[in-house]
């Protein structure tokens, strides 16, 4: 009786899934390892972002040793500032991924909302009797509204049209980008002549904290508004996720949608709200991004940012299959990616290889989490 070895793909996939199931139940093998098993049990009780947190600390220490300039407040603030847009969208993405969904459209939405905001700003500034404050506020409202509306559209398709989140937001990824390029006539949106709007992208000088910059000039220490907004968005996201019914329902739907429905959770509405929230987060990010550069490039602003956001969320210990995750983890994930990028610049790694390093680190981070999960029975 010869037994063949050929396996078709779907067979292999299912068999692999079964194996993982076994591994999850399988502790370490021999009797003498009970103590080590207890250690793993204890490790499993730690929050899911512990690994990423430890990695971040190690990285900070190592980078500081290798290049003390890393530690300068200017550089640290710079890292926060450069990653605030990813961080703001990451808060929304955390909710979506815990819901067992995904949103690929946020990068394109960033360009579209930012672009339409700048068009609004320019149009309002050109009108008689419209103050600069009104114009800037109008532009901000437009950006938030475009973000929320696009998110709600994605949410409607997913919740009521039962379109798979990947597909629905893939449509958004392509369509919103196209729309942004169309409105920009293929080029960029520039905001003209609003110092107020430009100031939004700067920061708040903190009095009495004069910090030396290399070059001898003394400037006030600034906390950029983008960073402050990121903090506020993260706190709001934390409260929504952990202290409101919506957040609890997001966890329930992500862990087991059917059981949630049987417990009278309004599943479709929860999905709609969650995608609207990530759209809103993209709108907030659009304000910060457009103000910081006082322009939006219709074809490159936000390009591939969705992947960076998803990577940060997953590195932060949020489960791709949904049902588990945290805002704190995502913040750490964003910082981890930011610090690595910064480190590569400071250690003068060839910029063409930055992608390679990032890719390896993302996969390693997730692999480490998987191993941790298998080890614990």
């Amino acid at each position: 009786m010869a037994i063949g070895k050929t396996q078709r793909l779907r067979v292999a996939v299912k068999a692999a899934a079964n194996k993982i199931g076994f591994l999850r139940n399988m502790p370490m093998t021999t009797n003498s390892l009970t103590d080590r098993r207890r250690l793993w049990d204890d490790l499993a009780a730690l929050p899911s972002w512990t690994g990423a947190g430890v990695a971040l600390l190690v990285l900070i220490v190592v980078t500081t040793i290798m290049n003390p300039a890393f530690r300068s407040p200017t550089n640290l603030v710079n890292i926060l500032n450069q990653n605030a847009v990813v961080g703001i969208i990451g808060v929304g993405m955390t909710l979506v991924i815990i819901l067992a969904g995904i949103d690929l459209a946020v990068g394109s939405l960033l360009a579209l909302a930012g672009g339409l905001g700048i068009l609004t700003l320019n149009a309002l500034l050109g009108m008689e009797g419209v103050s600069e404050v009104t114009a800037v506020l109008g532009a901000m409202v437009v950006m938030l509204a475009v973000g929320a509306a696009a998110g709600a559209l994605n949410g409607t398709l997913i919740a009521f049209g039962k379109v798979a989140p990947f597909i629905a937001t893939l449509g958004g990824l392509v369509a919103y980008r196209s729309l942004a390029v169309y409105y920009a006539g293929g080029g960029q949106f520039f905001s003209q002549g609003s110092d107020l709007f430009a100031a939004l992208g700067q920061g708040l000088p903190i009095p009495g904290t004069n910090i030396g910059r290399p070059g001898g000039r003394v400037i006030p220490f600034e906390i950029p508004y983008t960073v402050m907004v990121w903090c506020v968005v993260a706190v709001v996201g934390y409260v929504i996720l952990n202290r409101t019914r919506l957040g609890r329902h997001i966890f329930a739907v992500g862990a087991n949608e059917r059981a949630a429905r049987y417990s009278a959770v309004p599943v479709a509405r929860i999905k709609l709200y969650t995608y609207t929230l990530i759209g809103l987060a993209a709108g907030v990010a659009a304000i910060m991004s457009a103000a910081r550069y006082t322009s939006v490039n219709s074809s490159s602003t936000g390009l591939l940012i969705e992947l960076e956001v998803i990577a940060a969320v997953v590195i932060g210990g949020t489960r791709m299959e949904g049902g588990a995750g945290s805002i704190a983890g995502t913040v750490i994930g964003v910082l981890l990616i930011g610090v690595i990028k910064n480190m590569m610049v400071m250690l003068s790694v060839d910029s063409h290889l930055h992608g390679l390093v990032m890719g390896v680190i993302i996969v390693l981070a997730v692999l480490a989490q998987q191993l941790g999960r298998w080890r614990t029975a």
Partner: protein
Amino acid sequence: MSDVTPVIAVEQLTRRFPAVRALDDVSLGFAPGEVHALIGENGAGKSTLMNILAGLLAPSAGRVLVRGKPVQLHSASDAQRHGIAMIHQELNLVDELSVAENIYLGREWTRAGLLDRKRTHAAAREHLDAVGCLAKPGAKVGSLSIAAQQMVEIAKALSQNAKVLIMDEPTAVLTRREVALLMGLIRRLRERGVTVIYISHVLPEVLAISDRITVLRDGRHVTTLTNEPGLTEHRLASLMVGRSMGQQFPERGEPGDEVVLKVRGLCVPGHVKDVSFEVRAGEIVGFGGLIGAGRTEMAEGLMGLRRTSGGEVALSGKPLKARSPGDAVRAGLAYLSEDRRGRGLVMGMPVVQNTTLVSLKRYCRPLIRRRAETAATQAHVDRLGIKAGRLHDLIDTLSGGNQQKVALAKWLEIEPRVLIVDEPTRGVDVGAKAEIYALIHELAAQGLACVFISSEMNELLGMCHRIAVMRAGRVAAMLDGATATEEQIMQHAAGVGAAREPSTSGRRGWRSEKPNDCASP
């Protein structure tokens, strides 16, 4: 039997988990060709013992012997090599593949590097015939009934030359007739010299089928008995709980006069046709019938989980049109699902969050007050005697009986006027069963109207004031709980007269009876 070398034995087997000693110094031998039942309450260590034998779990101490030789079982394939196969409660088959492809999954028959379908089918047919399964080798597994899928799994185990078959609650998902067929198969396997380790909560089955019975309690080996005519269910139950069992079913209270739930002509397309009944305050109305008779679908129709086509539902005289479960819950309906792990509870969520999932609004103002939430959960834990480590542990860490109590607590949280329970004691041990019965009676005494769906006859007869027997989507009979008999229920459930019973020799013999479609509204 004891002088034969056991085909498989365990010596001083211990398995520790962080909080408990799930298995404590257990020594046991299983003889070739015996049916050896393993019984005990949930958490007694049955699953742990099985999982160790099946290579899914490593022991903390002690050893496993196969034909007298110590072996290390690191994986399911190790166990398989030693001739040990396990039939899980949740079957391990790929729905999208055919019966034959499933049987030879991972060991495909090939010719010149390509799959040899003809050979696969012929070989599969042989093994299917050996277990008396009539399914076609080419049929998709997903299209078969659960019973037929179970047979396929057994055929697969035998095709791998299994000498020891571990069956975990194999009859939990089967109808009566299917159970009888399975019992026949187990007897045939015994004649072929296969050892069957049979885990079950259903004591009459255990007494009917096994040669020897091992009782586990709190991880310890209590005793192993030879199944002799004098052995009673009562004796086994006492051994399992370690004390003498009192009256299992409490006295039925007197129902009130107020009609709480009134259902007229309810239709669920494809499943339920023209069902009418009333439940009064304090009354427990049972729903019996074969699996597939439409009882669960009826409950889901009432809850707004399924679309209904016609029919009127009224709660205390007020008409209820439930378009979603939310509507039903707001009106005061609660439904304890039969599928605890898939629908009843959110696995992977803590005990507290499961308990308050439906009633969460109460603890919000507007942010969730976690302390109040935890306190409320603690109150339920105390009242229902739920054994849980910490309330913020995942629900998955609780035993089946305790999980079921949490699922019940979740619905009691909303203080329902009508409680629909669907197989409330499935996969629940004797101790927890009695507690659930007592709880339902207590609630009824406080004026709750209860719909009690169950496939266990004694439960229906012991618990209910009236029993509706459903067949093919209709209420075939409404019996008085005090005077009804098992035979009456069976007769109505299967259709009066043996001629209506579908033939068990036909190719479709393993399928349950399909209900008639409802006429479109």
